[in-house]
């Protein structure tokens, strides 16, 4: 635990150093605020403008978490189906990969045309960016089950169902959690992108408004918030992982 603090402390210090460097450079070169604000300006704006910003926070957090949950559930379900039914896998896996090649930025307006400006198209976008890492990580986890454990289960006459639920699924939990961590960071990005394209509230909306009025300090407030939210989600999943994954070597 102490090691984690020391390591975390180091990266925080380095980050602090980068901020100071940024602050100094902006001041020395006298860069105008509408081009690049200094960190101090961003913090000032975050504090002063918190009232206008806070309305947007909640809707983005809600959207990102809900989308993450839906995307991950769907992803896990798809992974289980594909793994247990190899025929379906042959049919669908290439399609899944193709689905990831559709640029979100193109797909999002289409979804809004089809499903309106409500929650539905936004959740679809977030789910779409979230489910893929889960599918890939889970499938890899299922496949990489320790062969000697599988051999044991076969020798004592476990059914395919028992092998999956008692061995392959719990064995792949660390992989599934790696997928979850990637998905968590994607979900925030997905939420912001979906808000750009049509919403009344949200960090994405705040960002586009700030950008079009050259309030670069506000854009940075939004960027920092998105980063913070990603880290918090990541940390939450890491905490759940610590509780759920037992008896293994500490992973990163």
């Amino acid at each position, binding site marked *: 635990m102490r090691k984690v603090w020391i390591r975390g402390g180091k990266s925080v210090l380095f980050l602090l150093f980068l901020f100071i460097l940024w602050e100094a450079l902006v001041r020395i070169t006298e860069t105008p605020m509408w081009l690049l604000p200094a960190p101090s300006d961003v913090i000032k704006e975050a504090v002063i403008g918190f009232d206008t910003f806070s309305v947007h926070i909640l809707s983005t957090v809600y959207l990102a978490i809900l989308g993450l949950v839906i995307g991950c559930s769907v992803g896990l379900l798809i992974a289980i189906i594909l793994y247990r039914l190899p025929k379906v896998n042959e049919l669908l896996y290439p399609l899944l990969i193709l689905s990831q090649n559709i640029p979100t930025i193109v797909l999002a307006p289409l979804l809004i045309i089809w499903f309106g400006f409500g929650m539905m198209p936004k959740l679809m976008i977030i789910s779409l960016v979230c489910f893929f890492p889960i599918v890939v990580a889970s499938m890899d986890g299922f496949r990489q089950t320790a062969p*000697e454990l599988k*051999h*044991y289960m076969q*020798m*004592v*006459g476990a059914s395919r169902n028992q092998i999956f639920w*008692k061995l392959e699924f719990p064995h792949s939990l660390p992989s599934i959690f790696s997928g979850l961590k990637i998905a968590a960071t994607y979900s925030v990005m997905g939420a912001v992108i979906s808000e750009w394209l049509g919403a009344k509230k949200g960090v994405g909306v705040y960002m586009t408004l700030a950008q079009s009025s050259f309030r670069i300090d506000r854009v940075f407030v939004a960027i920092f918030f998105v980063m913070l939210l990603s880290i918090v989600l990541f940390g939450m999943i890491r905490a759940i992982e610590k509780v759920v994954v037992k008896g293994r070597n500490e992973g990163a």
Partner: protein
Amino acid sequence: MLLNIKELNKTFGDLHVLKDINLSVGKNEFVAILGPSGSGKSTLFQLIGGNQTPNQGEILLNGESINGKTGFISYMPQQSSLFPWRTVLENVVLAAELNGKPDYEEAKLWLEKVGLAEFANSYPIELSGGMKQRVSFIRALLSKQNLLCLDEPFSALDEFTRLKMQKWLLSVWEENRKSILFITHSIEEALFLADRIYILSKRPAQVKAEIKVPFSRPRDESLLETNEFFLLKQQIFQFIREELSE
């Protein structure tokens, strides 16, 4: 006879692995199978376990054919194969769990008997190699099947731990005499533990000899230094040397 194997043949493609194997295991009997590496001992277990079907011959358990049928044996593999996310207690009941609700009280009782009670809630990662094999053996004991198949269970352990584990196995077995079929490549181990020994030839494996071990039970390690033990060991070594020279 609990287990009866008749004229068993198994080939993989062109490779003839088992040839006309005949062997049997009686009730409460400890039978060892001794053979060189790669002689198809593990294939034999695959067949008994029902994960492979023989090309010819029959495997009878209590007079009924179990060719290609799984779930009739309990099994202890070479590596302990404990599930890392299960505690010792949860691991021990795993095999029983596959056929219904496990009896946790019985499991706790056994862990206590073999001195592992304090580790009941530990994870396998915290155990030594010898302790893992003990847990693995208790897991096999706790499943309801009458035939216990042990596949070189101590071959991955160091010499000191191995002798300790052999004595431990005998002491537990005295209390719960399930029929045991024990694969090994150590002559001493086979002699020290078993009532009867089948010696397998190299590929294609045939039963080269069947040896009755005359030593009384309970046995302890002083047996290892007796003359009779030594003579029998030499006799078995003769068979094995023939395999080497051919």
